[in-house]
């Protein structure tokens, strides 16, 4: 399959078909073809997946009543009865005032093959979409508590009726939700690829059947993409291949609580490693891009008040300062001298005056990307040594946005994005420079 107008990047095609279980093969054969397909990857999500399946079923019944529809649950070997919960979940259309008859919703509950991870689960969903010749698809997380039937419409209709290939989610989030996205992933992907996709690692996406086929053709299914980097990979690959991208406003995203203090550095290794690996793969695309363009946003937008949240700025700053004291030699290896000098100025400044300015942060992220590219040290060390820097920047963001609404805080993120775009020539120059 050819790409969407832009030159092809990455590894070429000719990929073997993804294996499906005989039971799934049989089911796919029975169904034959579909218009719409919604995939739900899962692993031990018995508590929440029933709600997700009901929301998806209601969404398909309400908004795509005349379309043939398939729901695919791609499971990683759950032992808690997730598959049974999917099979059991039914929605009473009468109570939802959905009276129109629709073609029956087919459910495929299948285990996936390959490396354990969300990416492998998606691969099976893409393969089923390809075999059923689905026109439009969506994937939603199985631990969602806030999903409504409207999500399905918002993720699928732009593909079916507006000709878009990729629909990224746009969530209503607290200003302190998604600090990695706000301070790193969004500004960086926007500056690199020139598209203002606000939640590039959102987790719930809509896409066309042909984009699913394009994803399948890529040789990434034995890499980290199969484990944890699938979200950013899908977004980046969609942009880089020239697909038409848009966003849909889905409202709040509430999902099963995870321990927020779970290993932050491991999280950074996964997210930043995936972003930087894609920078290497797509370097011939992003080096040419200048500035950025707004991306069409569908859906009814609204705002809510900001409730106070607990943020321990002191602890973040002390973590940054410990990094400055103990990791300085490592930081000197991974950052440019000017960047390190900028950080050293923060050594003794008073708490309330502590700031890592936007310009310095943009340069710092670019330095880390270049060091990752040039392998100046083991990559895992590089990304883990970044943790105190990230905490320093997060403290800056909290201090700068205290008392601001989420909407006003969004203005601060816009300034940051501008700093990333303004300093992109610095990245390109360092990226292309020969190793020294």
């Amino acid at each position: 399959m050819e790409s969407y107008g832009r030159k092809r990047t990455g590894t070429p095609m000719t990929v073997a078909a993804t294996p499906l279980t005989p039971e799934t093969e049989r089911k796919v054969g029975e169904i034959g073809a579909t218009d719409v397909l919604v995939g739900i990857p899962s692993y031990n999500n018995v508590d929440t997946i029933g709600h997700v399946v009901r929301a998806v079923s209601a969404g398909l019944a309400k908004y795509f009543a005349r379309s043939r529809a398939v729901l695919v649950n791609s499971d990683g070997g759950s032992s808690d009865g997730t598959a049974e919960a999917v099979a059991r979940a039914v929605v009473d259309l009468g109570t939802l005032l959905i009276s129109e008859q629709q073609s029956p919703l087919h459910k495929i509950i299948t285990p996936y093959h390959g490396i354990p991870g969300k990416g492998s689960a998606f691969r099976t969903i893409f393969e089923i979409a390809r075999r059923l010749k689905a026109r439009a698809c969506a994937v939603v997380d199985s631990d969602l508590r806030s999903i409504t039937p409207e999500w399905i419409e918002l993720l699928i209709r732009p593909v079916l009726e507006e000709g878009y290939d990729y629909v990224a989610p746009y969530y209503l989030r607290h200003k302190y939700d998604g600090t990695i996205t706000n301070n790193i992933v969004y500004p960086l992907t926007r500056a690199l690829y020139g598209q203002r996709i606000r939640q590039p690692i959102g987790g719930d996406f809509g896409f066309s059947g042909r984009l699913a086929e394009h994803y399948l053709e890529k040789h990434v299914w034995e890499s980290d993409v199969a484990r944890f980097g699938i979200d950013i990979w899908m977004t980046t690959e969609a942009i880089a291949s020239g697909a038409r991208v848009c966003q849909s406003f889905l409202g709040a995203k509430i999902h099963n609580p995870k321990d927020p203090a779970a290993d932050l550095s491991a999280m950074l290794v996964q997210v930043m490693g995936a972003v930087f690996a894609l920078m290497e793969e797509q370097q011939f695309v992003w080096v040419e891009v200048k500035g950025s363009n707004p991306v069409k946003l569908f859906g009814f937008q609204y705002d809510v008040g900001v409730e106070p949240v607990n943020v321990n700025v002191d602890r973040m700053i002390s973590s940054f300062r410990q990094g400055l004291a103990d990791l300085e030699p490592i930081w000197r290896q991974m950052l440019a001298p000017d960047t390190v000098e900028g950080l050293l100025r923060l050594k003794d400044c008073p708490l309330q005056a502590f700031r890592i300015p936007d310009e310095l942060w943009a340069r710092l992220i670019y330095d880390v990307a270049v060091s990752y590219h040039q392998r100046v040290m083991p990559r895992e060390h590089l990304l883990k040594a970044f943790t105190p820097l990230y905490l320093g920047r997060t403290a800056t963001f909290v201090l700068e946005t205290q008392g601001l609404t989420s909407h006003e805080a969004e203005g601060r993120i816009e300034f940051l994005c501008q700093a990333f775009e303004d300093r992109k020539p610095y990245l390109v120059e360092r990226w292309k420079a020969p190793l020294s």
Partner: protein
Amino acid sequence: MKEFWEKALLAPLETLSRNVLAVLPNVLAMSIILLVGLVAAWSIGHVVERLLRVIGLDLLSNRLGVSAALARGGVKTDPSHLVGRTAYWLVVAFAIMAGLGALNLQPLNQFAQSFLAYLPRLFTAALILVVGYLLSNFVSQAVLIAAVNAGIPPARIVAACSRWGVQLVAVAMALEQLGIAQNIVTEGFGIVLGGVVLAGAIAFGLGAKDLAKEFLERRLGNKPRDRAPDDLRHL
């Protein structure tokens, strides 16, 4: 008088000249071997150095911290030159051994054989030291980063301990390989390591039993952390 002249003076001279004539080809052979060896050593050293420069050994050494370690040890030359010089002196040593062997003198032959038999051990010991050094750098860097991220104040001390621990193991293994005081090294190392582990266990048991309890409860019982986490969601 004539007899005395022949027996006392001419005979030793004749014997000496016979001996000299017998040894002369060996000396000549030794000279040729040394000369060829020196030329070969110069060529090999030069080629090795150039080759290593081309494949980027210096760059790799910079990244692995080997160059910095050499500089700390007072070695100002780059690793390619150092390896080239090592190759040169190895070939020179072989040439000298071969040259001495050409003299066909029993004590020298024995010495050369012993030296050649010892060379593999020397090489293995050197390799153990180099690998141990690189591993100690890697481990101490990983420990330092992990300790800082965990907010452990003496992070650098912990990292230094891990570095010296790995290097100590490497030195003990190298000495054992060289056959130097094998028993003392092995037992000494065992005693030191056992002492360190025991001291650590006692210190941890007395000073951090609550921390250990919380850690184990969290790991084994999926108990959440007691300290209030930030409400921040990073992703």
